[in-house]
């Protein structure tokens, strides 16, 4: 057993895709194009027909965290009165906005901000702060939360009045984009973008599902990295091309039983955003013990919902309201249990993420529910996806070691 072997070639492709994305974003703004800062759950397809180029502070925040720059950025913001207990993605992003510091040259100045509350309520406060800093318009879409029923998860279908409300707001967003770009809305263009999104999401789903193989050709740590284009360039043909190649590679690896973890002996499912600044250490720790994290709820969120064909705004309202994080606790526990069964996992690791309250509140009960449903054990890992202040090597790795020993 040892470190992950057989470098995944798609990582080299990914570097090119992301480099082009960030470079083009900067050039685009300088050439007079409009740039929007967008939350990861926002209906980004709506921007592309207007020629608005989206960039993602969350993706950039993940890079800042992985390169260990976040604490420096957060300190700048905390000195201005923001609490340390707030979302570290948001704090480091505002720190980047104020200082311009970034490990990858930074994001271009936005012409507008586009946020959607389907991932959390924090995005509203975060983007309000950005709107005041940059003095640019904030367009927001409010997606009513779908709570559980009393003793079971809420139905899969989004309540009709919620769809109507969200569709209305999508229409209002279109009006805002028309004003900002002085371009007219084209349903034909939007359908084309949605087709590409649908195709990319299906490919991404197929990529993740290669994890069902024994041994798995990739781990969730690979998925956390390969996820970037489905978030940042969704709706483009480049995104589709990238995931076709990733899928080819994973299928080839699976066909020859080339496992990502040498001597895979245990399979686990991960819940929540990764600990970006400890990805390598965690990946090595598990791999050295023959443990493969075969699936996760985070990257699965971009694969679990298919944008149906039909009237575009209706379809978008349904899909963006019904996403994983906008649903009740039992629904989220069901997804966790489903992944355990689908990927034939032996247990679960739930990252209790201090920064991300909507993802983390209820995890103790989610673990109990998923355990009752699957009979598999789980471990709660207390950390933060961006801020290393709450990380303690000894505590975390000792806890994980004890958990793994419980499997015998």
């Amino acid at each position, binding site marked *: 057993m040892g470190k992950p072997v057989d470098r995944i070639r798609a990582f080299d492709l990914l570097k090119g895709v992301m480099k082009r994305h960030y470079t083009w974003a900067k050039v685009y703004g300088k050439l007079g194009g409009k740039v929007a800062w967008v939350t990861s759950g926002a209906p980004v397809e709506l921007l592309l027909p207007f020629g608005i180029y989206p960039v993602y502070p969350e993706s950039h925040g993940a890079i800042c965290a992985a390169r260990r720059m976040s604490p420096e950025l957060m300190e700048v913001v905390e000195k201005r009165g923001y609490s340390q207990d707030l979302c570290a993605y948001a704090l480091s992003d505002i720190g980047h906005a104020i200082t311009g510091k970034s490990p990858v040259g930074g994001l271009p100045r936005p012409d507008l901000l586009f946020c959607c509350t389907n991932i959390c*309520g924090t995005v*509203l406060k975060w983007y*309000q702060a950005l709107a005041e800093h940059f003095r640019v318009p904030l367009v*927001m879409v409010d997606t*009513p939360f779908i709570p559980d029923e*009393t003793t079971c998860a809420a139905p899969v279908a989004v309540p009709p009045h919620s769809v*109507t*409300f969200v569709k209305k*707001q999508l229409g209002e967003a279109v009006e805002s984009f028309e004003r900002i770009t002085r371009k007219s809305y084209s349903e034909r263009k939007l359908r084309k973008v949605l087709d590409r999104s649908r195709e990319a999401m299906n490919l991404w789903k197929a990529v993740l599902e290669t994890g069902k193989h024994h041994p798995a050709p990739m781990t969730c740590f690979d998925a956390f990295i390969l996820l970037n284009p489905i978030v940042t360039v969704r709706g483009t043909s480049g995104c589709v091309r990238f995931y076709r190649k990733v899928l080819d590679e994973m299928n080839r690896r699976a066909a020859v039983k080339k496992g990502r973890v040498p001597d895979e002996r245990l399979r686990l499912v991960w819940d929540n955003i990764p600990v970006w600044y400890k990805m390598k250490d965690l990946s090595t720790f598990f791999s050295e013990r023959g443990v493969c994290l075969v699936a996760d709820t985070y990257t699965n969120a971009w694969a679990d919902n298919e944008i149906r064909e039909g009237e575009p705004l209706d379809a978008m309202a349904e899909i963006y309201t019904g996403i994983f994080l906008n649903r009740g*606790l039992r629904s989220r526990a069901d997804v966790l249990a489903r992944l355990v069964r689908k990927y034939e996992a032996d247990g679960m690791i739930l990252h209790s993420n201090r920064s991300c309250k909507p993802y983390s509140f209820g995890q103790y009960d989610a673990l109990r529910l998923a355990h009752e449903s699957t009979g598999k054990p789980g471990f709660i890992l207390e950390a933060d996806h961006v801020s290393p202040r709450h990380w303690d090597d000894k505590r975390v790795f000792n806890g994980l070691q004890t958990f793994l020993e419980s499997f015998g």
Partner: protein
Amino acid sequence: MVFDRDRVKGIAADPIAHARVAREQTGRPVIATLSSWAPHEVIEAAGGTEVRLPAPDGGAMQGNRARAHLQAASCFLCQGALEAGLDGSLDFVDAVLFVQTCDAQQNLSDIFKIAVPSIPVLDMYMPVNRTSRGAAAYLEKEIERVCRDLGAITGKTPGPDELGSALDARREQVDALSALYGSRIEADGLVPAMDFYSVCVASSCLPPSQAAPIARSLVEDIRSKAAVRECPVERSCMLVGSTLPYPGLYELFDRIGVAVRDDDLSLGRRLFDHPVPAGGSPVERIARGMLDRSSGATKFDDGLVRGSGLLRAARRAGVKHVVMPVLKFCDPWAWDFPAVRDRLEAAGMGMLLLELAGGEDLAAGTIRNRVEAYFEMGSVGDLFDG
């Protein structure tokens, strides 16, 4: 009617105990809520009495049962509410209505359903994007659903007549509280801040027909005392924040001689800061009233500059200092603090943030020291400002 200070203060000190007794005496179903965005008129029309879920006290925050469900870094208000459900304090409650206004509350609702299965839980979503043209229609559907859900609990599904009567009663209550707050500057040094707080808490857990006369009686009390005022209070402030169910905080201001001239709090001005709309069906009026309320920290009003409303209110109240007490891990208000402070400071005002852990002795100890030090510094600054 004479203001019965002891009775009202007693209700404010322990609204849950009061609600338990009222439940036994009147048989009226009790609906517990956590958010000021609860549709008060609908609860009243369904024959229910509303009571706020309790905030944490010192004991609840140490080794509590809620910690088996919530991480340590969870909103303290949510921890206190869940603990009350788990320790049996709410065993007389007929249902809990969660109005989803923030990440913590919307998750707490589902946790509560699992952790406290003996108490029915109802949900309602209050739009964040209140300026959308679709918000009113959406909210009306939510209100209609809550009417049905509450009816199933209380046995009385409110129709247009019941809702109309509840709106009338609500208007009376809003008028009485508006008159009370209108006399607040007049009350400097004559009536303790604790009295205003007590009346607001009583208004949040008594039927409007009982609450409105209490507010009016305090207005009369202020007027009778104003005639014999000797000297005005020199130090004053305004409070802003979320729910602040801690009588000790008001005692603190009373003890150190700082007049609280106004507030923007869930258990304060936000109980009544919007007129009850006229015209349209009762459901439309209730929805419009909720959409017209001041936004607080959890809502989005397109074009709103954060802190601008507070600045106007502070100027109206004639205060130079605003105090923002925030319960630990209350993200929306923690997010607003820097923006609001910057706006106030740019206008020559000061702002003090107090992070409360719940259960500390607010009228003594660290919090008192911070408040006293702040106002002593502020007084020196005011002298130099001339």
